[in-house]
């Protein structure tokens, strides 16, 4: 049955250059779905393939269900077929020379420790689960992309592996189908109680599917937390920016108490912000803030400012404002079909302290 995955200090280096995966550690308890999220080339696929055994790690340790499957320091490497895992590929990788049924039955026929039982019954049950019961005897090539991906899913679920790995399984599908299959995928994974490791660069997918999300960049795991925490308490300026907090205000730290920092924004005064970092007075800081969290026209108790509207972009169900706040740019979003503020107007606004996240400003890029 499904088992826990544990990764400690995983490293993978291809030839020369910086490592594709560097010091990544996390655990996935049995039955949980963890999503690895990050920009292209950050090492998500490489991590996943190391877990599958399709790539040979150069450092660290991977254990599945308590059994160590890879530990290069000790020369230990278990081949993919002995790891008892299932994998769904971005390109589906269904075998075009077989029917749907043959594809799904293949693992049951060729696994060494097949758990006995009626192959046909298991195949039918799994096809039922993914909604392909009526297509069992069709050649795979006659199916649509979405149906092929269901076949791939059925093929990796049919033998109930301990762990299911999915590498951008929805990225080859069109937008509408992607939404539908995304929700269905979560239902199926939860229904089977499968432990899952899912790779994507699509935030919406990550939030819907993941019990926890790990954000990666340049081979490092920056933060691993439930979606709500990733979105409301990003550990790092990159995570904040990657998940959509695109506003950045710069200033100088005046004081910090616990997780609250007071920062001087220059001419417009001081701002209070949440910070996960041990900032100290005198540090340069940057404050990340989502456009949705700017309260236009509101005067709360703290962090009240006045800004000038530079430009207004009406988008039907929402309006985007470009604001100027003490010489710095700020983008704000207002929901609703009516735009309430005019260009060049001077308007009050509140930046809620728990929605302003301060990080040390080291001049690093966020892309």
């Amino acid at each position: 049955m499904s088992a826990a995955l544990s990764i400690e200090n995983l490293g993978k280096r291809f030839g020369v250059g910086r490592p594709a995966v560097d010091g990544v550690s996390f655990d996935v308890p049995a039955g949980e779905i963890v999503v690895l999220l990050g920009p292209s080339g950050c090492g998500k696929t490489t991590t996943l393939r190391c877990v599958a055994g399709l790539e040979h790690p150069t450092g660290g340790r991977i254990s599945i269900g308590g059994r160590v499957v890879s530990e290069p320091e000790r020369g230990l490497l278990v081949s993919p077929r002995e790891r008892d895992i299932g994998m769904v590929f971005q390109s589906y990788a269904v075998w075009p020379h077989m029917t749907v049924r043959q594809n799904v039955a293949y693992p049951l026929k060729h696994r060494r420790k097949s758990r006995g039982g009626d192959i046909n019954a298991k195949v039918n049950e799994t096809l039922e689960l993914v909604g392909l019961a009526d297509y069992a005897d069709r050649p795979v090539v006659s199916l649509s992309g979405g149906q092929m991906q269901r076949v791939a899913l059925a093929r990796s679920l049919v033998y109930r592996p301990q762990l299911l790995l999915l590498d951008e399984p929805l990225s080859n599908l069109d937008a509408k189908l992607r939404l539908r299959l995304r929700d269905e995928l979560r239902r199926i994974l939860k229904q089977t109680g499968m432990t899952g490791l899912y790779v994507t660069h699509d935030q919406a997918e990550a939030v819907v599917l993941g019990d926890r999300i790990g954000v990666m960049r340049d081979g490092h795991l920056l933060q691993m937390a439930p979606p709500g925490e990733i979105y409301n308490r990003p550990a790092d300026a990159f995570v904040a920016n990657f998940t959509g907090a695109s506003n950045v205000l710069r200033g100088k730290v005046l004081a910090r108490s616990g997780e609250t920092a007071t920062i001087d924004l220059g001419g417009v005064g001081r701002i209070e912000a949440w910070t996960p970092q041990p900032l100290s007075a005198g540090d340069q800081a940057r404050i990340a803030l989502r456009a949705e969290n700017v309260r236009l026209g509101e005067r709360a108790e703290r962090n009240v400012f006045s800004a000038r509207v530079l430009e207004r972009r009406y988008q039907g169900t929402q309006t985007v404002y470009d604001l100027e706040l003490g010489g710095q740019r700020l983008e704000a979003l207002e929901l609703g079909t009516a735009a309430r503020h005019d260009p060049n107007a001077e308007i009050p606004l509140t930046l809620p302290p728990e929605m302003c996240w301060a990080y040390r400003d080291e001049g690093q890029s966020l892309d």
Partner: protein
Amino acid sequence: MTATNAAALPVADSVERPTRGWATPLWVGALLIILAFLVIYPLAMLFFGALSDSNPVVDGFGAFRPSIARFLEVLGNENVHLAFFNALLACGGGTALAVLIGLFFSWIVVRTDTPGRRFIAGASMVPLFVPPLVAGVAWSILGSPKTGLLNIALKWLGIDFRFDFYSMSGLILVFGIYYAPYVYMFTSSALRNMDPSLEEASEVAGASAFTTLFTVTFPLIAPAILAGMLLSFVVMLGIYGVPAALGAPANINVLTTYIFKLTAWSPPLYNTAAAVAILLMVVTAIMVWAQQKVLSGKSFATVAGKAFRPRSLNLGSWRWFTFALALVYLFIVVVLPTIALVIAAFRKFLFFKDFDAVFDTKAYSLVHFNAVFDNPLTMLSIWNTLKVGVITALVGGALAFAIGYTVNRTHVPGRKLIDLLATVPVAIPGLVVGVAYLWAWIGLPGGLYGTIWILALAFVARFMPDTVKALSTSFLQIHRELEEAAWICGRGLLGTIGTIVLPLARPGVVASMTLLFVLAIRELGSSLFLYTSDTTVMAVLLLDYYEGGNTGKTAAFSLVQTVILAVLLGLTNWLSRGSAQGSARVG
């Protein structure tokens, strides 16, 4: 030996060409007449010959009484059956072996981390350049039952086993190892184009590497395997040199050697030879057709335009095993035959008291080379070969350019027919072309027979499909707009071709002329029937030496021929590369 499918190439819509009223029909007519002269007339004569007991040209049409009965009588002959059966057995067995070797090599090169893969990939193509007769000669020196070098070595080692390459199994073995590259070419590119996650999915699902290979990999590249199989079968079927060298001593005739034997009898049985040639041609045509069918069918494994990260299986220490196997293959096809030829060519007598005698330097000398070059025919044959090569390259290249341009770049009526006629020879083995040309020209007084030209024209016809195909590809790379710009600037058709098309297509033209030249200088099958003592060529003279029974002279001339081929190959390659670079600046 790949077919042209110029008809399937997309022809872009063009602006209406300004054509003068009489120019188009004249041009199309001229091309059709030339093709009829090169292809249709000899083939028709071959058919007439097969259906009668006379040659209508020699004996006049009065004596020509066609009857299908004669043809059937030939087909009913048990010697023909035997040759047919032997051909199927030798080529079938050879193909099976070629598939094994070709598949194994493409797997090693594309899918594993075997050391020296690129070198192995390059070196395993070498057999393609070895003339079949030279390979046959080398293996007869190595594996003849009594005096073969291998057997002498075995005796010295005290092993009680003797090779006999003068046998069906020897024939199969030599066919298999020398024609494996044809299979390799198809399967390696299919493997390279196959999404590696198809195999990874199988591995993750719990199948062993072996199971994966047989349930996923091979079924997915089955079309490529089949295409390579059919091609190598067709090529083997048309080869004369190997069965002549290895089959003849054991009295094993295949179709090609049997056909030649019929014409060598006295009186020569030309009509019977023509009938058997048609049998050979029909079998070949069916195979070529099947191969085209397979190639044009939808292939599972290849996804056009998608780049895959190459997957290379980590073989661990097994990679030294695969590396060693590759070296063994290269040793068998390249090193061993070369050693054999060198020893035989430089030794005064090919007799060894014991194995140590191999290293006795006193036994080596240049006598055989002196003998070869004392023979006036030797220099004549080299000279003739070069002449035929140059004529074939120039005439064939020019004709292919005209055909390629007409078929791919114009909309003149009749271009489909031109394309079809130019493609027909793909299904005709070289030997059959030779027989057909013999039939067509032997009786015409003051005609082509007995000149260099008949050889050159036969080669032009035989290799036309390959040349046209090579050229068509380069036409497709020239943008139509460049040509149209010249039109609009007021250039005439010939002016446009001369100033725009020809310079831009030059690398393609040079490359296909080079190809023609190389193919022509090593061709044996069609020369066999067309040479006379004045027009003998290297390949034919080598066969003479071999059949004369002097191994030393045969080996010496084999080496001479191989060196000349290698030098010419290098030279033409260098020339065409220089030309390609020269025009890179234009395009």
